[in-house]
C-alpha cells in the first residue's frame, strides 16, 4: 500500500512563518490529487494545530501520513502541556494574551475546529512534557 509521510518543524512565536506548514501540506494534497473537501479539512486542522504550537507551546512538529483514502495528522510539541484538556476543548475557552487576540487569534475555537474536521481525534497532554494531538481524516463516501 502506498503512503507518504512528511514532517514539519514548527517554531514557537515565529509568526512570520506561521501557516507555512499547513499551506505546504495543502499543496502536497493537491498534487496528490486528494478529494477537495478532504484537502480542505486537513488544511484547516493542520493550520489550527500549527497556530497552537506557535502561540501556546515551546515548539514542536506536525507530521502527516497520506494514503489514498486517509490523512493522518500528528501534532506534537515540547511543552508546557495543557492543564485541563476538557476545558481547553470548550468552544470559546482561550488563554491567549491581548497581544495575540489583536492578531486575530484567541477565539478559543482551534481545538474544537480540529475535532470537527477529523473523523478520529485524540489529545494527550502532560504538564512539563507537552501535548500530542492525533487526527485521522478520510474521504467521505460519495465524494
Amino acid at each position, binding site marked *: 500500500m502506498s*503512503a*507518504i509521510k512528511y514532517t514539519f518543524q514548527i517554531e514557537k512565536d515565529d509568526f512570520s512563518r506561521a501557516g507555512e506548514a499547513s499551506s505546504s501540506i495543502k499543496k502536497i494534497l493537491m*498534487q496528490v*490529487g*486528494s478529494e*477537495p473537501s478532504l484537502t480542505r479539512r486537513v488544511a484547516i486542522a493542520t493550520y489550527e494545530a500549527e497556530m497552537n504550537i506557535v502561540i501556546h507551546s515551546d515548539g514542536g512538529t506536525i507530521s502527516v501520513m497520506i*494514503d*489514498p483514502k486517509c490523512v493522518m495528522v500528528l501534532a506534537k510539541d515540547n511543552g508546557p502541556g495543557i492543564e485541563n484538556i476538557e476545558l481547553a476543548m470548550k468552544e470559546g475557552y482561550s488563554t491567549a494574551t491581548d497581544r495575540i487576540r489583536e492578531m486575530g487569534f484567541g477565539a478559543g475555537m482551534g481545538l474544537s475546529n480540529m475535532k470537527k474536521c477529523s473523523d478520529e481525534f485524540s489529545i494527550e497532554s502532560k504538564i512539563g512534557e507537552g501535548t500530542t494531538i492525533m487526527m485521522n481524516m478520510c474521504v467521505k463516501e460519495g465524494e
Partner: protein
Amino acid sequence: MEKEYFHSVILKEDRCIGCTSCLKVCPTEAIRIIDGKARIIDERCIDCGECIRICPNHAKSAVTDNLNVLDKYKYTIAIATMSIYGQFQPNISINQILNSIKAMGFNEVYDTTLGAKIISGLISRYLLLKKKVEGPLINSSCPAILRLIQIRFPDLLPNVVDIETPMEITARIVKIDAAKKTGLDLKEIGVIFFTPCTARATSIKNPLGIKNSYIDAAISIKDIYGEILKNLSVNPSYSVNVETTKETLKWVSAGGQAKSLGMEKYLAVDSIHEVIKVLEDLELGKLEGVDFLELMACRESCIGGPLVIENSFIARAKIGNHAKSLSPLTYTDEEIDQYIKMYEEGFVRLTETIEPRLVMSLDKDISKSIQKMELMREILKNLPGIDCGVCGAPTCRAFAEDIVKGENNHSLCIVKTIESFKNKNLKRKGENKIES
C-alpha cells in the same frame, strides 16, 4: 480521452526569447520554457492574462476575432465592456464611443449595464437573503477567478453565485429581442463582444456553468481601439439606448460590484495574486463577518484588463468622471420580480455545475501520485531550491514535478551542473597536489 482544453492566451513564438519573465507571474504554474520558448500547459491556463501584461517582448497574445466576423451574420449587435469608457479622452462621451462602434457596421450597440443591473438586483434582493452556504457569496463575474477557484480552491465552488456574467445576460436579452424584432433566426444574428480580457474571450468558446454562450465572437479593445478613435467624430445620430447608471458603470472598477449591492459586510479584492491570499484565508475559515466577496483577477478590476490600452488608475478616474453625470441605479418591485423569475427559470442562472478541475495532481490514480510524490521528494533533495527558472520551470519544485511526470525531459539544472563541474575540478586539483 478528455477533449482538448480551450484557452485564449497564446504565444507568438518568433517574439519569445525565453526570458522567463512570465514563468513566475503565472498563478497556476502553467508556463514552462522548453527549447528556449515559453509553452503554456493548456489545461492549467485560467486566462488571467498576467503573462500578457508582463512580457517585455509582447510575445504573449490572445486569440480574438476581428471585424470580418460581421460578414457571417444578417444582423449584428455589438456589446462593449463598460471599461471601454475609461479608454478615451475625458471629453469623449459614452454616446460618442457607442456611436463610433455602431459606425463600424453594427445594427445595434450596447454596453453591459443591463446584465450588471440584473445581477446586482438578484444578489442584493434575493440570493443574499436565501443564502445557505457557510461563508460569503463570491461573485461569478470574473471568469479567470472562477477558473482559479476550480483549480486551486475547488471546495469554495459552492460559494460562487450561480448567475451568468453581465456580458452573457445582456447578450441573451438583446439577441432574443432582435430575433423577435427582425423575424430572423438566432443563428443569423451575430453578437460581438468588445472584450477587456482573454478570460471573457475564452468564456464565449468554452463557457463555464452554461451550455452555450449567446455571444458569437470577441474583439479585443486593444485591436479595435484605433478604429473607434477614427470614428469618434461621426455624427452621433444614433441615440443609444443604454441606460448606464452610476453604480453599474462602476462595476468595471474595483469594489464597484460590491458597492452596488448597497450592503456593508463585503470585501473587494483585485489582482489575482492578492485574490489567492484572500481565498487561502477564506478556505481556512479566517474571513469572518463577510457576506459578499468581490474577487477580480485584474488590478483595479476590468478597467485593468490585459487587453485594454489605458493605465488602470487613469481609467478609474475617467470612469469616475463619467459616473458623475449618470443617474443612480434604482429598481421597481416588478423589475425584481421579473429578475427572480429569470433566475428561477434558468435564463440568467448558471444551470450547469462548475466541477473542480484537479489539474495540479501528479497522476489521476492517487496511489501512483503518492509514489510520484516520494520520487519528487528524492529529486528535490538534489536540487538547489533557489527557483532560478533557468531549467524552464518556475520553481525547483515544479521542475521536480515535471521530471516525475515525465515531461520536460531535455532540461537540466544549471546550478547543479556547475556545482558538479566545480567539484570535479576541485577533485582533480586535489589529485594533482597529491601527485606533485
